[in-house]
């Protein structure tokens, strides 16, 4: 019973916040709705007993991606004074969201205590090996059965990195890079010179 109730709560809020992510006019609000959607997706994962993936969702997406998105959003031209203006007016809404989140957490923990939901997969291929935790089960598959794909995924990340560098890195003529070997090779007697410039003439360095 608690499973079904928790499932529908998480599912409905995930979809609703995903819709608002798209429809929100303010990009900052979009990002915040997106975080809410990720949190609820993580809740769904917890319900199915995949707590490791739930953790990954929160850490990877909510943590890194949301912060990254916020950086991008910060670069847009947004009037933050105007944003803060509605604080008191929107306080009840914020309180409501907080209460919903609290209720979700209580429900989620309750459902998790009651055991994982039955996914009803057609064959038993997706079943967790008995006695193994999520992380052990994933690691066992990732480094044996899916080794080829795991390595190939590594190359994808490398390609993405090469791409980012190719498209953004450029040699600038107006900056001077540090040449460490040259600095170390330098001797004190080369570093200082005595010159007697004539009056009114510059010094050639």
């Amino acid at each position, binding site marked *: 019973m608690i499973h079904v109730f928790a499932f529908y709560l998480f599912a409905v809020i995930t979809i609703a916040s995903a819709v608002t992510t798209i429809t929100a006019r303010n990009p900052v609000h979009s990002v915040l709705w997106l975080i809410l959607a990720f949190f609820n997706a993580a809740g769904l994962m917890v319900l199915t007993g995949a707590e490791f993936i739930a953790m990954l969702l929160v850490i990877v997406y909510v943590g890194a991606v949301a912060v990254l998105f916020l950086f991008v959003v910060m670069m847009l031209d947004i009037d933050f004074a105007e944003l803060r203006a509605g604080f008191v007016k929107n306080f009840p809404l914020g309180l409501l969201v907080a209460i919903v989140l609290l209720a979700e957490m209580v429900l989620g923990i309750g459902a998790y205590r009651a055991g994982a939901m039955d996914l009803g*997969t*057609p*064959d038993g*291929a*997706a079943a967790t090996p008995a006695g193994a935790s999520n992380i052990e089960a994933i690691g066992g598959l990732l480094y044996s*059965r*899916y*080794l*080829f*794909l795991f390595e*190939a*995924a590594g*190359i*994808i990340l*490398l*390609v*993405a990195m*090469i*791409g980012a*560098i*190719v*498209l953004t890195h*450029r040699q600038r003529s107006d900056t001077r890079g540090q040449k460490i070997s040259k600095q170390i090779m330098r001797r004190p007697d080369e570093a200082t010179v005595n010159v007697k410039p004539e009056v009114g003439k510059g010094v050639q360095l």
Partner: protein
Amino acid sequence: MDWSQSLRLIAPEETLSVAGLVLLLIAAWGGDKSSRLISILAVAALAAASFLVAPALCGGAMGPDTSAFFGQFRADAFASYAKILIYISAAASLVIAPKFFDRFDAMRAEYPVLVVFAALGMGIMVSAGDLLTLYIGLEMNSLAAYVLAAFLRTDDRSAESGLKYFVLGSLASGILLFGMSLTYGFTGTTSFSGINSALSSGLSHGALFGIVFMLAGLAFKISAVPFHMWTPDVYEGAPTPVTTFFATAPKVAALGLTMRVMLDAFGDQAAAWQQIVIFISLASIVVGALGAIGQTNIKRLMAYSSINNVGFMLIGLAVATPQGASAMLVYLAIYVAMSLGGFVAILMLKDENGNFVEDIPMLAGLSRTRPALALGLAMIMFSLAGIPPLFGFWGKFVVFQSAVQANMIALAAIGIAASVIGAFYYLKVVKIMYFDEPADVVKGENDIWHKIILVASVVFISPLGYLLTKWLGGLADAAAAALYFSL
């Protein structure tokens, strides 16, 4: 599963990944000065990989011996056929690149590295035996392709094409992933053979949605109508050697992948997707033909021509028989030769200052100023239009023959009628080159490598190509048999 056997089967992939990593190190230390050396080594690596896949193709490898890593990867004759086409196209786009980029002072050491990794990803795509392999190969290829499209950073059109390709490509990947997740949800497995056996008891609505979404995502990647809008913009904006690459290798890879998914994973459900493929193929033929008429930029014209050709190839898929698959593979090989030749010829159109000429009106009277180049381009245009005795006719002929054999005469008839519309704009280019007053623009000198590739592809599509029909047909039959064996 035997690990050493699996590792032996992925030898071409291992060669390319090690080569890519080593070349990247050379690029990191040598800088852009070493780009020539890296290009040569990359071509050598692609040649080595071709030699490694050749035995599987000549021996017609199929069956369980060709399946690696629990069926996730298949190194059969079909994969080898597609891989050889991919490696040849990738090598050609490396050979023609330095002269183009030198003009903009933009030859960078990462270009060959990215092409090698893209070729690796495309090899994984055509070898896919699992939805996960499919997606990883596709993303490896796509990510490299997005960067290659935007490679000329100083050129706004190149940046625009890279951005467009990236945004639309990500959307298509999302649609494809959605279809894959539906398929996985309703069959409980990601392996193609598993999906096939899970669906043998009947197709649920959810799985049908999965097929439709996957087909939509794949149609984007092969630039079939109605997911073709990005093609002219990207082909026009991307640097010409990169466009050459886009028009050949990724087309082969995506079509090969589509064949694998449709004929293998959903092979028993042909009735469910056949009408979609028929629509896509006819729409591509018609839109490709009509859209090309108004174009004045020759790269955009070639983009519409590729949409049109993809439509003809999809007729081979729509009939869903081994003959159809084999016809499609024959057409693919001829199409690759025509596209390579066409884009290399475009690359050779330079004015006296060495700027690249892309406007079709500027080609007026080319036959009088540069008769050899005009003849090459004219032969490629005739071949693309499918006019006998050129080899392009043979590709269309085998595809229509397979449709007639499968009793889909209406499909073949509409296809033939539409190819007449298509012939119009190819002939228009020939008319401008041969019968208009010379515009006298194209005067620049050309690189020997461009000439070699143009001559090679023109000889291949000339009537001499018919000497190869038996050999090419035999290889395509072996490849199609391997594709059908894994059912």
